[in-house]
């Protein structure tokens, strides 16, 4: 950050000199100052969030009687406080993985359809409709999920239990409606669909025309064109899009809190009601928590913060490694 700004200032004067006006120089300085300020402001905001979370979390962690990483309980407002994030971490990661597994292939399919297959008259409205999904507030998804999706998924759950019960994962051992991590994953998949779709669509539309025409000239079918030029070019874009979606899935609060039947148990039986996620747990416990209980919730928030940083960092690494082959530099 600090190293790039001086070079901007250094390169600026020759431009203004050729313009010959002194007001331009002042404008450059103001602009450089403003952009530098904005950059620093962002760092300050991030740092203050991290400091706040760490400080409040450390208060809670120092008094925790349980093991923060392995305790299967959340009794932070009790005396003595006992709480741990194992269940939340498991639930957050599992529901997000389910969401990604469902949403990414569908999103890529929609994006390819809109960008390469659909007739123009259909492509535009379809794109609006997908984008519109993003405009629906998450509490509406929550209400829809609880009142419509959950009853609808009961049948699917029983079907999965009957035919795929041997997989353990789909073995439903507990009676109860489908207010499970699996249902949450499906709901999250619907919620992250628009962001993954629209970013992928933009990337697919930017595939150099020449690449596609060259492939066509070699006698490739449309599918081969997509496989040989569109997908390799778009890969890093699709990964970034997925990471944006994953970010939303990890942090989704109200929809999960409304649909899930939370309990502090880790179970591989994904169709059973139960489990929990970081954001859902914070939403559910915050109201009644005393000041110390809130610190404990903030500690769990810090873990979510680190988790998202980690995911984003990993995504950047993947993209950086693949950039050379993406064709974006061609």
């Amino acid at each position, binding site marked *: 950050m600090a190293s790039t700004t001086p070079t901007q200032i250094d390169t600026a004067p020759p431009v203004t000199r050729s313009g010959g006006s002194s007001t331009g120089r002042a404008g450059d300085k103001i602009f450089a100052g403003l952009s530098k300020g904005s950059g620093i402001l962002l760092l300050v905001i991030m740092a203050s969030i991290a400091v706040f979370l760490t400080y409040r979390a450390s208060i809670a962690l120092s008094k925790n009687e349980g093991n923060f990483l392995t305790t299967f309980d959340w009794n932070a407002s009790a005396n003595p406080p006992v709480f741990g994030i194992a269940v939340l971490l498991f639930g957050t990661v599992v529901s997000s993985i389910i969401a990604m597994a469902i949403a990414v292939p569908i999103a890529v399919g929609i994006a390819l359809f809109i960008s390469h297959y659909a007739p123009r008259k259909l492509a535009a409205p379809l794109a609006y409709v997908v984008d519109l999904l993003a*405009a629906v507030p998450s509490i509406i998804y929550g209400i829809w999920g609880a009142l419509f999706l959950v009853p609808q998924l009961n049948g699917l759950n029983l079907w999965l239990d009957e035919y795929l019960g041997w997989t353990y994962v789909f073995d439903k051992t507990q*009676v109860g409606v489908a207010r499970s991590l699996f249902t949450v994953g499906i709901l999250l998949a619907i919620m992250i669909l628009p962001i993954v779709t629209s970013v992928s669509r933009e990337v697919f539309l930017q595939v150099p025309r020449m690449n596609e025409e060259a492939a066509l000239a070699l006698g490739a079918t449309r599918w081969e064109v997509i496989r040989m030029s569109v997908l390799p070019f778009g890969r890093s874009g699709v990964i970034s899009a997925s990471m944006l979606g994953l970010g939303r899935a990890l942090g989704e609060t109200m929809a999960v809190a409304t649909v899930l039947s939370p309990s502090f148990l880790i179970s591989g039986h994904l169709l059973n009601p139960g489990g929990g996620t970081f954001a859902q747990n914070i939403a559910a416990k915050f*109201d*009644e928590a005393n000041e110390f209980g809130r610190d404990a919730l903030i500690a769990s928030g810090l873990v979510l913060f680190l988790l998202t940083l980690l995911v984003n960092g990993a995504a950047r690494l993947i993209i950086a490694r693949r950039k050379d082959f993406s064709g974006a530099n061609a």
Partner: protein
Amino acid sequence: MKLQRKNMLRASALGALVVSGALVLTACGSDDNTKTADGSAKPSAAAAGDIKCDDAKGKLLASGSSAQKNAIELWIKNYMAACSGVEVNYKSSSSGEGIVAFNQGTVGFAGSDSALKPEQVEESKKICTGGQGIDLPMVGGPVALGFNVAGVDKLNLDAATIANIFNDKIKKWDDEAIKKLNPGVTLPSTAIQAFHRSDDSGTTENVTKYLKAAAPDAWPHEPAKKWAAPGGQAASGSAGVAAQVKQVDGAIGYFELSFASAQGIKTVDLNTGAAAPVPATGENASKAIAAAKIAGTGSDLALKLDYTTKAEGAYPLVLVTYEVVCDKGNKAETLPTVKSFLNYAASDAGQKVLLENGYAPIPAEINTKVREVINTLG
């Protein structure tokens, strides 16, 4: 680029349409609510005549328990109609939040489903200079056990059976224990789906206190705001539990009576050992609260409820919510308003409003003491 901008415009226009549609719908929803509240409330001119405004003035902030939300809102409405120039604002969030706000000194009084804990009293001494926080029982109410079992309209249960249902010991509706309590009722073999609160809640604390007191053998868990029993399913808030019970066949769950009546959910009659099973009503809850003893010391009027009462027509699964105030050291600018408002709430007119709205009035004997304490607030 141009096309894209157009897309966005159109998308946002559609989005706005959806959002405004949702707003219109929610607006309708809240309209309905006030209508039902009005229909049964009827703030009468006579009630307004009983309100003494004294030196009340300015703005009074309060916050806390959502269980007493409807009661407080009716009081505020009547009170503000009688005393012009006074504004009382109750933010219904939760007991915990109310007490936190009270101990930070941001509200004149807090509403709470459970009495102050010793450490909270200790904390309150910082805000109440020369005094401490005290509990004034102001609103009572039955906690209903709502059920949804196809073909069953009336259900009697005793504390031990309820404990076993929520403990995951009784799994089917045609279990022998339930059959024995309900002769002549055809019970299906539907699986029982017991719903409890997923958030920490004063309602949960009251229900578990009742189970622990009335069926100690069947209920081994300590009463707490957090649900401790294994099994069952959780939902957020009383409204969330009620919605699940309404939706799921074979469900049973607990919530304040008003949620059951609002959604037409059938409620369990409690078999307390009295001659006849007791249905959940405001009057029956009042009869049970009458058996309560004052457990607080000095001007603190925290109640110890008798959950094992066998009195005829007394519904022992009750919730008493308190207003938390400073006995001494209230803020000078809000003290007259706090006294005058609470005086109205504890008055006969104020307590009568409760019965008309599914709550239970505080029995006269305790209520007299509450009024005495209010007049000594400083």
